[in-house]
């Protein structure tokens, strides 16, 4: 049967996948997608805990409100991040991390 641990493990594996992508990939757009994946993994944890912690016969809606705020912030973050990527592409004609080495020293 499915327990809370199942959800936590799925969430942890999704987070680990996103982390691997952020470290291993060079395309900034894909790094961004992996960041979104990590945020969603955290959301899954919150929703799972919310459902398994029953308050007054209902799921804990404080946790689900936090998920709502996370999704909103993530949407704003994506909009700004993609604008930065477009500005970067204009300056460098590339979206690879190797092309941005000005701060490397």
């Amino acid at each position: 049967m499915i327990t809370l641990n199942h959800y936590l493990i799925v969430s942890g594996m999704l987070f680990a996948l996103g982390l691997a992508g952020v470290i291993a990939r060079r395309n900034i757009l894909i790094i961004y997608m992996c960041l979104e994946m990590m945020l969603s993994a955290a959301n899954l944890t919150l929703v799972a805990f919310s459902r398994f912690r029953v308050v007054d016969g209902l799921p804990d809606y404080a946790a689900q409100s936090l998920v709502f705020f996370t999704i909103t912030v993530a949407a704003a973050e994506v909009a700004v991040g993609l604008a930065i990527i477009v500005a970067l592409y204009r300056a460098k004609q590339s979206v690879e991390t190797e092309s941005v080495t000005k701060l490397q020293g």
Partner: protein
Amino acid sequence: MPSILFYLFAAITLGFGLLVVTSHNPVTSALSLAASFVGLAALFLGLDAYFIGTIQILVYAGAVMVLFLFIIMLLDIKAEEGKKPNIPAAIGGIVLAVVMALQITTICSSFNMGNVQIKDAPLALTQAGESAKLPTIANDLKAGVLPDAKLMGLTLFQKYGFHLQVVGLLLLVGTVGVVVLSKREKGVKDA
């Protein structure tokens, strides 16, 4: 949610997630991420979070992924063919991910509080309906339906009204920021 559905949607989420990380073509990555988010939304629905599941599909799989695809096609990013992968970074990423997945699995297997099934934490809808103040929510609860969106709205506007306004301000600042960032500076030649 029956176990088979849980495993199906978990497999969809993780499988397409793996495709996001491994695929060479950014368009494949973006579409796989959308599929992965749909699987995740199904997991949310299985956890009785209908509102969150719906906005996961609408906001993430809809709006955010369309924005990603739009940028990929606008910048005309080609698949990185013929390029060698960054071997040290790839090894580092895989090792870190495996270590982290193992760590989480180990912690979860000894986390006794996590050993509860959904039927061990049943929702008491009729009971909650007795104490619900709003008639529309009370009627739904007494009829044995979970009015998820109504309860979310109640929580957001009653308990987190200020936070909601701050998030609204954040979205406004984000919009202004995007306009400022994408505006071409005067005198700077676009290469």
